[in-house]
């Protein structure tokens, strides 16, 4: 057993865990934070995406012991006093989900994009979400939702990304074909 101390969605937890325990299982089975689903369990689908120390990770591909001393934000840590963020509202209003299984990961990945690139193009949204699979929507409404959230955040001048938001320069990452 290894002793870890992790801050998750603003609450600090201390636990003795087996080194082999995946962060996804720690969040779900130990902390009861089942808002983060496990989809493929092969690092492909992105459903289990959370934020670790200010950057997205696939929580099925991180050990809980690797998060020791770190700060994790899950989909359940985004709303403030029960009020959704612009991204959460946009997914709801633009019908960016059907079954909803991929949605927590989609929103965490989109949030990561908007921190680095507050006004992405549609292509940039698609590239940023390349590690998140949705089997229902065909992605059209997901992309619309992210663009709508970007518009709203820019219009309101608010930074919904919260602490740890990067101010780094925008870099286009090509998804070459």
């Amino acid at each position: 057993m290894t002793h870890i101390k992790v801050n998750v969605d603003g609450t600090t937890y201390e636990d003795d865990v087996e080194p082999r325990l995946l962060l996804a299982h720690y969040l779900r089975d130990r902390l009861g934070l089942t808002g983060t689903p496990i989809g493929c369990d092969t690092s492909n689908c992105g459903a289990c995406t959370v934020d670790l120390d200010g950057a997205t990770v696939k929580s099925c591909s991180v050990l809980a012991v690797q998060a020791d001393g770190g700060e994790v934000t899950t989909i359940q840590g985004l709303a403030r006093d029960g009020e959704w963020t612009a991204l959460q509202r946009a997914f709801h209003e633009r019908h960016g989900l059907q079954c909803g299984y991929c949605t927590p990961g989609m929103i965490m990945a989109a949030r990561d994009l908007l921190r680095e690139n507050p006004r992405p193009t549609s292509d940039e949204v698609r590239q940023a979400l390349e590690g998140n699979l949705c089997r229902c929507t065909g992605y059209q409404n997901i992309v619309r939702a992210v663009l709508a959230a970007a518009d709203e955040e820019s219009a309101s001048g608010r930074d919904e990304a919260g602490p740890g938001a990067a101010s780094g320069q925008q870099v286009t990452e090509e998804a070459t074909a």
Partner: protein
Amino acid sequence: MIPPAFEYARPGDVDEAVRALADAGEDGKVLAGGQSLLPLLRMRLAFPELVVDVGRVGELRGVREDGDALVIGAMTTHHDVVRDPLVRRHAGLLAEATATVADPAVRHRGTLGGSLAHADPAGDLPAVALALDAELVVAGPAGRRTMPAREFFVDYLQSALAPDELLVEVRIPKTDGWSFHYEKFHPVAQSWAIVGVAALVRRDDGRIAEARVGLTNMGSTPLRATAAEEALSGADGPEAVARAAEAAAEGTRPSQDLAASPEYRQHLARVLTRRAVLTATGWG
């Protein structure tokens, strides 16, 4: 899926990591970013007794200049490599190719050194390191040694690292003045390359004076397309490049899998070499 049980060590520096690996012998495994190792553990394809997590070894991160070379710490993440101004200025091919690795969340965790030490011929960065004539600095109980990339990749998922050695730095000769392109053929945005081609060209007086071509997934190790490189020397336009690219698959023995036959991979190597060089030269 739940990984098999293992002991866990989290050294604070390179010496401590090497000692842990030496104690574990054949049963130790280095955990870098974990984006290859954790899937292997989950699928129960690896059974290390000790996992040595070098994630907190600060000296292994970052990029610095050393004369005509860049020195990139083995634990520098893909995300940081892509954004690093020194890498973009002096090793642009590496930045370009790294941006195509997997997806943003994987690039946040995955590291340059981890990708190279994993020695997967389907990984993008081994062929890029080969094309860049990179050198790998390795720490072991007896000190450090440096080896060229062409000696580092031994076989499928097998590097020249001994069980008690740790890859600590990647030295990349600056390629200022060279143009480059990484051409990757993959059926799904985040998937492995069926074939990839890393091309670097140096031009003189309108002709290609020197070309380097690295091949991804064209055998059990990353390869250099030596015959095509020689044929490209002196090429003065798209027709000459197309002729030279016909030699790109010479001497290769690519694998058969669900994605492609060996013949198809060889076809792709020729086509992608042409495209990569034409894009690099701006002749395409």
